[in-house]
């Protein structure tokens, strides 16, 4: 009987084990930083036990008997905040579009793209409140200061969204316009803009939504609007008026979000688009 030898199985090298040292070190360092931070802020852990009771107490003060006589003034100041948000969005979007398009790869040259992107990154690092504090020395405590802070603060992120949107446009269209003899500007106008415009318009509306929320925060430093009013009522412990303000802010913000969201869906997905995935 002849022996049938099975073919030798090739030796397969086992995949290298993942190196866990770096991950473990990062975990340890993160844990140490969190513990050090907790130690230095001197948390009063005993206060945590009283927190739920305090929250219920203040909610009762605000919402048990709201002072509805303050409603007209609250609406008026909310309108100031919305105007601040709208003007800030308009200025910010215009500047972001003008600066964001040449910052896109394939549109602007490298010597222009890099400094523009650096400026956007620096602006992103500074919160709107800080910008408002800096510019109010020139423009004073007015809603225009708030609008200007929103506009400048918004450029950092909005210009980034702009160049990322332009870069996401499939290259074929721009190549075809360039092949038809289009200059750099004409290629951007006919090859990139028609495809990017709906998304950019949608992002502009989203910027307005974000500004409505941020404008309330800017009011806290005294530039007017509903945040300013909220600070006043809180300092004088008029909790029944604070309750009315919170109701107005929540309702108006949600209404603006709903209308703006519907408009954005219509722009990006078409008039007949309906929400089916619950993501919007």
């Amino acid at each position: 009987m002849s022996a049938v030898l099975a073919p030798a199985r090739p030796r397969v090298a086992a995949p290298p084990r993942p190196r866990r040292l770096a991950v473990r070190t990062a975990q340890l360092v993160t844990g140490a930083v969190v513990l050090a931070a907790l130690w230095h802020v001197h948390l009063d852990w005993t206060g945590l036990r009283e927190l739920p009771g305090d929250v219920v107490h203040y909610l009762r003060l605000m919402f048990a008997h709201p002072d509805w006589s303050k409603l007209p003034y609250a609406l008026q100041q909310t309108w100031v905040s919305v105007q601040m948000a709208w003007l800030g969005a308009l200025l910010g979007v215009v500047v972001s579009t003008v600066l964001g398009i040449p910052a896109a790869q394939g549109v602007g040259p490298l010597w222009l793209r890099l400094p523009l992107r650096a400026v956007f990154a620096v602006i992103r690092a500074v919160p709107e409140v800080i910008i408002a504090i800096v510019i109010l020395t020139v423009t004073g405590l007015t809603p225009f200061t708030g609008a200007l802070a929103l506009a400048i603060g918004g450029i950092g992120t909005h210009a980034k969204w702009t160049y990322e949107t332009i870069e996401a446009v499939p290259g074929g269209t721009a190549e075809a316009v360039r092949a038809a003899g289009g200059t750099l500007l004409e290629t951007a106008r006919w090859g990139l803009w028609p495809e990017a415009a709906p998304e950019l318009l949608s992002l502009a509306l989203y910027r307005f939504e974000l500004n409505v929320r941020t404008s309330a925060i800017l009011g806290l430093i005294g530039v007017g609007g509903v945040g300013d009013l909220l600070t006043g009522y809180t300092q004088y412990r008029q909790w029944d008026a604070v309750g009315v303000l919170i109701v107005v802010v929540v309702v108006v913000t949600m209404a603006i979000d709903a209308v703006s969201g519907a408009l954005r869906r219509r722009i990006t997905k078409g008039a007949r688009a309906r929400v089916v995935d619950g993501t919007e």
Partner: protein
Amino acid sequence: MAATTITEPIVQVTGLRRVYGSGDAAVRALDGVSFEVSPGELVAVVGRSGSGKTTLLNLVGGLDALQEGTITVAGRDVGGLDEAGLDALRRDVVGFVFQSFGLVPTLSASENVGIPLRLRGVPVEEREERVALLLELVGLSGHAAQRPGEMSGGQQQRVAIARALASSPRLLIADEPTGQLDSETGLAVMALLRGIVEAEGMTILVATHDPTLVALADRVLHLQDGQLTQHVAS
């Protein structure tokens, strides 16, 4: 088939070389390619993917930077043109058709066809007249208001051909124009190009790796690894 007794070639390519990258990673896309194309010819450039077809067409049309060799298109030395000169070459002399159509999805068929005319500053009335004529030429008169997303692949490619013809180019460069189409539609598109050559006397340089489409060409250039290996008259 087109006449072959024309004296002055519309395309003259001599010793063309194009290398991408450098050092060990350098890829020789074209290596000493020379050929001529006479006016009114339909010349097919065939070869497998990566053989250098697209590089060759892009260099002839002034879409890619010339490294070594000479290219003359309609009497213009492509290597000697600056950016504005290349823009003018593509605007006035050369028309391009791409495999992926390159249509603007948010514009209608007629608006897409009208783009090269806008770039040339053609007045609105004249532009509309020319666009209507071109859509009729490619058999899409009834689809002027449709957007690319509402059209079939073959219809979109015919819109792209109409757009490439809008500025009455002397040379039409088509890079795999049937690459995204089924064989029947692809053959119809090639037949359209053949018809344009015969009706308008236009010169067409078309890259394809579909052998059934090559039969419609006057001449065939075979590219392999960046070199011209055969030069066949159909």
